[in-house]
Every structure is written in C-alpha cells, then in structure tokens.
C-alpha cells in the first residue's frame, strides 16, 4: 500500500504560549509561521500548499483560514482548513504530509493556532462541552471538557486504585519541565502539596490536574525527500516514519469502557507497525503525549504500551517518564504546563520532538540513542486519536 516516497519536516516554529490578548489570530499565526520558514531556510514563495488547523469558535474570526493565509503571504496556495477538536494540529500535519506523500505538493506548511481567551470562561466551557454530542450530552447534562476526562478518571481510579497523588505527580513533572521552556505558559514549578490540595474543577480532577485556557500557534514545513535534497537540507530533516489514526464514539454511553482510550491503542498500533516499532520504551528516545489532564497522561502511558494497563500511576510514581527514566515524556512541559491552544497543540508537538531529535532542546535535551520520537494527540476524550513516529 502507498508509495515509498519519504517525507520529512524541515522547519518548525512555535509562538510563545499564554494569554496573547495583544494579538489578532493572524498576528499570532504569523509568529509561528515566520519562525518555521526561517528555520527551514526557505522563503514563503517555496510553499505550495498551506493547511490551517483550528478548533475555532472562541475567537471572533470564525473562518480564520483565509485571513491567516493572506497575512502569512500564502494567498493562492490553499488553504485547507481542518478541525479535529484538540487533535486539529495533527490532522493539519497529516493533511500536509499526505499531500506531499501523494506527490501533489513537494513542500507544504501546516499551521495550527487557537485564540481561546477572547471569550469568558463560561463561554469557553460551553464550547468545549459541545465537543461530544450536543443533543444528548451538553443540552441535557451540561458536560464540560474537564468533566469528560474526570469521568474517565473516576473509572481508572476505581478499577486500578490510581490516586490523587499519582495524578498530581504528572502536574509536578510537567511544570518542572515547563519552567525551563521559554515558550511555556507556566514557567514555574509547583509543589506536590499545592497540586493535591488545589480546588476541584471536576471531581476527581483538581485545578492543577487541568491544562489552562491558552492562546498559541505553531507551524511545520513538510517536504518530499527529492525537494529536501534539492534544497540541501538532508542533514536537517526529521522524517515521518509512522502515522496512525483512529477515533471513538461521540456519546459517552456508547463507549465500551472508560479506563482508557481505544483511539490511542489503535492509532499507536498503526503507527508502530508502519515505523517498525516493537517495544516503544526501548525504541523511542522521547515522547510528546496528550496530557490535557493529568489522568490523560497516565492513561496514555498504558494505551501507548509503555506499561501494562492499570500501571500508569506507578509509572509516574517511579519516575519512569522523567529525564533519566525509562522514557522521557513531555520534556517541554506538556499541554498541562506549556499550554494547550487546541489547534496549535498537535503541531507544537512536532516542534518539540523535532527540536529534541536535532539536539536543539537546550536545558531540556534528552540523550539520543535511537533518534526516534513520538507524538500522541487526542481530540475530545479519544474522539480523535493521532500518533506519529518521527526519526532522523
């Protein structure tokens, strides 16, 4: 199936994450696009196709793809707008990747962006709470996004004995990492005591179990091997070695189980098979996974096959996902502490893994042995699931 055309990432950019209320969405996207184009040492004229990813609705610009495309100087080169809730960024990268893989474009850019702070918190919650199935869930029961992950957490804690403290340890680790990431929204450490005693947002999840409401953008320039050779960028490229995608039901009552995300299991199997990954813990140097809530990181350790089902709590407690552990996870601070601007998140995972695999992650650099990394991006609670394997 498919062709043997290799596709690589040659440039990445990422805005500072946080409350960026001084910028329009165009200006925000421009920050990441400019960095990515300069990083790739190309010019905007080299781009043949642009893909714009945003979950949308929270920004005053409801159809922002064209305004952004124009602002970044890509008028006429697309754009394709994609949406996959919190996994929008991965869907944007995939669309650009697939266009290059198919030979339709030789060089494409994926731009992920989100402005989330132009509306108040109740409005933001009401948008996120609609990410399941409006009619049967939000309309009747007032679901919110923290509420969805909290329901998964209740099942995981009841079945496997996962504790408040284990959840909080994820936040402590990711904040510790974000403290060294200049792009992070929260560049500060938090104590375990502070995390486990913070107020409930959605029981059993507390304030420090949740990612915040973040503005941000990220961009990745993707090119064919022939183009990469032509541009003389072979030493700089990070190759897409595996791709996996899956999804699950929009309605919680239609899920089989709540203690994990089937979309993660299936997307990772697909990506591992394509990339020839047999044991992810041994075969990967670094992982960016979807920790929108602390329980999400714990479930992902298990669903990605880093440990057995139910052992995710122990995995964080043992330091297995920290620097020097079995497999460093979310070295950049994760969604939890770097921030989770929905459409930008998936693309920003590429930014972070590309920096790691090039050895450019500075204070947060992992030891490189296999020179392979993984991105895991979830939309909803496994409503969308994406896994990419990158390598040099």
């Amino acid at each position, binding site marked *: 199936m498919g062709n043997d055309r290799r596709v690589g990432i040659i440039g990445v950019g990422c805005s500072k994450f946080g409350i960026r*209320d*001084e910028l329009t969405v165009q200006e925000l996207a421009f920050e990441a696009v400019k960095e990515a184009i300069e990083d790739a040492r190309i010019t905007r004229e080299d781009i043949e196709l642009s893909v714009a990813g945003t979950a949308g609705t929270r920004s*005053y610009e409801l159809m922002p793809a064209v305004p952004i495309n124009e602002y970044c100087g890509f008028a006429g080169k697309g754009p394709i707008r994609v949406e996959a809730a919190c996994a929008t960024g991965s869907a944007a990268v995939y669309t650009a990747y697939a266009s290059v893989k198919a030979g339709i474009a030789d060089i494409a850019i994926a731009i992920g962006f989100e402005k989330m702070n132009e509306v108040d*918190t*109740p*409005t933001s*919650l*009401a948008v*996120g*709470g609609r990410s399941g*199935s409006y*009619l*049967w*869930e*939000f*309309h*009747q*029961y*007032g*679901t*919110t996004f*923290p*509420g*969805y992950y*909290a*329901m*998964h*957490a*209740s*099942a995981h804690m*009841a*079945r496997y004995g996962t504790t408040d403290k284990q959840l909080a340890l994820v936040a402590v680790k990711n904040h510790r990492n974000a403290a060294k990431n200049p792009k992070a929204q929260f560049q500060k450490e938090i104590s375990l005591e502070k995390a486990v005693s913070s*107020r*409930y*947002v*959605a*029981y*059993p*999840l507390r304030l420090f179990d949740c990612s915040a409401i973040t503005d941000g953008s990220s961009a990745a320039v993707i090119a064919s091997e022939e183009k990469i050779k032509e541009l003389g960028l072979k030493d700089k490229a990070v190759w897409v070695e595996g791709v996996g995608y899956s999804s699950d039901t929009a*309605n*919680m*009552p*239609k*899920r089989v189980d*709540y203690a994990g995300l089937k979309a993660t299991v299936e997307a990772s199997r697909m990506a591992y098979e394509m990339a020839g990954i047999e044991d992810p813990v041994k075969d990967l140097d670094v992982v960016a996974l979807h920790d929108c809530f602390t329980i999400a990181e714990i479930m992902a350790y298990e669903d990605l096959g880093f440990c057995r089902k139910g052992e995710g709590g122990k995995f964080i407690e043992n330091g297995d996902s920290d620097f020097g552990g079995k497999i460093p996870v979310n070295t950049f601070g994760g969604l939890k502490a770097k921030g989770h601007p929905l459409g930008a998140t998936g693309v920003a995972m590429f930014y972070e893994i590309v920096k790691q695999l090039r050895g450019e992650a500075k204070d947060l650099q992992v030891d490189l042995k296999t020179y392979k990394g993984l991105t895991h991006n979830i939309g909803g609670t496994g409503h969308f699931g994406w896994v990419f394997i990158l390598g040099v």
Partner: protein
Amino acid sequence: MAEEKFKMESRTFVLKHELPVSRVEKYWKGLEEGKIYGTTCKSCGAKFSPPQADCSYCYSSNMEWVEIGGEGEIECFTQLYSFPQGFDFAEKPYIIAVARFGDFKVMGWFEGEELPEVGQKVKAETKQDASGVWKVYFTPA
C-alpha cells in the same frame, strides 16, 4: 504591572439553534412521561442509547423503540464545580454519571446525600431541571 492594552469589543452575536429532533420525538416525549427509550435495529439487533433513527451497522432504518429501566450500575461520574454558559441556573456543583441498565447505558444527573461510587446501584427517573429541560436523574437504588 503590565500596561493596560488597547482593546475593543465585538458586536454581540447570539447563537441559538433550532433542534431538529422529529425522528427521535418518542425519546423526548417519553421523558415527559417518566420513560427512557433506546432503539434496537429490527434488521441486525444493534442497540442504541441514546437512540438513533438509523442503524450505523447495517444501514437499516427499521428501528424499534425499547424502554430502558430497572436497576442500573454507575460506570463513571464527575461532579462539576465550574459551570458552562447555559447552566448558570445550577445552584450547586452537579454530578453527571453514566450508568448501565442491561444492554443500554444512559447518562444522567445523580442526586444523593453523598458522591456516588463506580459500581453503585442506581434507579433512574425523569424530571425537568430548573431551566425546563427534561432529563434523566439517578438516585441510589
């Protein structure tokens, strides 16, 4: 302190949708009669809760309405302390749970003295909330 940034406000934009629910009318009317309905596909036997007018498996639209009841068991739950727009009528943190009733699972608001537990047995009833929307409520069995 950072300097106050120059800002403006957009024009007001009210977004309220008409809900096209005629094919699942029985579910919504059922709630007003104290009944919770799912659907079963007459062609392949697939069961749907919430109900569907079409079968996602065999593509038949020949569906039978089935009443869901008896004793349920909670599979997951949460208690929300931050309310979304549209739920500002809630006077205290509300509890959302998913419970299994035989072949069907149902979402509902849980009402009890204490927080529920996963595995707890519940019974279901229907009521209007303070905003007038009919829905399912669980109470300890």
